[in-house]
């Protein structure tokens, strides 16, 4: 499994709540190859969000190993993790998490700022990504001047701007209506076809259907891990979405 992008070995995470120790993850071993589109599902409290946070290098595991692209990141310091997040991971959140009163272009360029990219190059890259998500005409708009779907597109452009190996989408359609949700999922699928690895957390089955593999969690353990056979239908849906966008 040398070409695995993500490999976790018996990953555990415990939270201390007063005197109680809550085991949110109880030994998760998952391998995700580069170029996969994986949906992580499960009811609340199943540990899927914890798993997501560990994959995103936002949190330290209590035990086990996490290898990202051949590097064991579970042993890294906070600042080193920040570097990993900056260069290798793009985040898409449920509530977009855009900086208010800041232009779409500057929002997208934010990771580049922390990565130390020069100003001119930042703007070129950010502009290209915004054009890629279909917002080339809204570079100077502030989040408040954009619809929910457009804001999420800005967030996706931001996730992509540093050419990450992995895009993590945490309930990316949770704050959107169903029509816009389909558009966003179509966009993610299109990106996946270009070779970007996407891990999506959702509790909605019809959103998970867009992925090519579905991993289900319950009580801190993986209970099911299967390829998604129904994906063709979803792809078709997305094509109608793309067609509409193009029109």
């Amino acid at each position, binding site marked *: 499994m040398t070409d695995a992008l993500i490999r976790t070995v018996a990953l555990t995470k415990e939270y201390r709540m007063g005197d109680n120790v809550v085991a949110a993850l109880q030994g998760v071993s998952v391998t995700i190859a580069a170029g996969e589109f994986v949906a992580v599902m499960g009811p609340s409290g199943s540990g899927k969000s914890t798993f997501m946070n560990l994959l995103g290098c*936002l*949190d330290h595991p209590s035990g086990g190993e996490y290898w990202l692209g051949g590097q064991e990141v579970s042993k890294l310091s906070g600042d080193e993790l920040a570097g990993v997040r900056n260069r290798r991971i793009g985040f898409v959140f449920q509530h977009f*998490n855009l900086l208010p009163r800041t232009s779409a272009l500057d929002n997208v360029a934010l990771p580049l700022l922390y990565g130390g990219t020069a100003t001119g190059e930042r703007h070129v890259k950010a502009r290209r990504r915004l054009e890629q998500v279909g917002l080339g005409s809204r570079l100077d708009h502030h989040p408040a001047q954009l619809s929910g779907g457009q804001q999420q597109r800005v967030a996706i452009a931001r996730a992509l701007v540093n050419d990450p190996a992995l895009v993590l989408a945490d309930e990316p359609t949770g704050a959107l209506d169903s029509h816009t949700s389909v558009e966003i999922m179509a966009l993610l699928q299109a990106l996946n076809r270009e070779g970007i690895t996407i891990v999506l957390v959702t509790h909605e089955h019809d959103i998970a259907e867009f992925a090519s593999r579905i991993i289900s969690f319950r009580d801190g353990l993986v209970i099911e891990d299967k390829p998604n056979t129904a994906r063709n239908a979803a792809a078709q849906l997305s094509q109608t979405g793309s067609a509409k966008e193009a029109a």
Partner: protein
Amino acid sequence: MNFAATLRIALNALRVNKMRSALTMLGIIIGVAAVIVMIGVGNGAQGRVEDQIRSLGSNIIMVFSASSTYTGARSGAGSLFTLSEEDAYAVAKELPDDIQAAAPVLRGSGQVVAGNANWSTTFYGITSDYLVAREWVIAEGRSFDQADINGATKVAIIGQSVATSLFGDTSAIDQVIRIRKVPLTVIGVLERKGQSMSGQDQDDLVLMPISTARKRVLGATVAAKSRSVGSITVKVRDGANMKEAEQKMRDLLRQRHRLQQGQDDDFNVRNLSEILQAQEASSKVLAMLLAAVASVSLLVGGIGIMNIMLVSVTERTREIGLRMAVGARAKDILTQFLVEAITLSLLGGAIGITLGIGASQLIGHLAEWRVDLSISAIVLAAGFAGAVGVFFGYYPARKASRLLPIEALRYE
């Protein structure tokens, strides 16, 4: 990440929150302006006292002929003339490093008459060194020259009060006044000096060459004989030690008067500096008090910054979480918030300085107070503002940088 980028991030964060930034700065603006105005007013008050001291002569030593007991009845200082003109010239000549000028003075009083006006005043027989020693300035006309001193010319320089009493609004120059029936031509009028600190009118006097006073005006009195004088007015050089100069002069005079060891001085030495130093000290205290009050307002401004920054950190927790998620290290967050706080306080400081200078000038103009703006006060206020930014910005910044990315992102 380089500093320019951090600066850009911080400035952008301030820009997108214009109202909050402005309100935060207000505290610092007022604080810095207050410091500058208060220090300006304090320095002005102190400067005025110092000027007063200078006009009275803080570095002036008066040597009076003895008030001695060997005639039985004690008479006032200067009534027995143990000093001579030569003593004065010797002091000036022998102690050139310490003494700038030493002027012999013969003093008398009497009625001054001009036309049908008359005025009772004090007159002084002096040399031109006296004007140098007292730093008195001729407002109109000229001073005495050596020919006047040598030749006992019948000329006089009068104070403003005398000029007004005798001549009203018309010019006193070239007018003739009489003192003890001796006609003197007015050749100069002194600049107005106002009251002394003891309430004495410093403009109520007539000056004449010492030779004129001795030979023509005082006439047959004791002062007429020999070269004796009532007092010597001595100006100590700027920078010279007052006490040392006084001691050297005392030794010189004792030597000249051939006084044995253990024998009392046959003259009295006095200077004004002690009273004046006390006054200067009190005005310094006033200036410090004002600065202290102003510093408190700067401190309050600093606490305001901390307050707003803390609120801002809480309010922007999700933003901080996002920044961390996209790659900001703890150090980047710390720097960002610290730079925000410092920028606020420095910008506030700059506005405060402008406002403070303007307000000082306005106060100086409206209240007719003397306000001395000093560069050091401005630098101090600016430095203090920056320090306030660092000091009060650090805690909120550190709090922000210590947030865990995952908790910050989830913060509601």
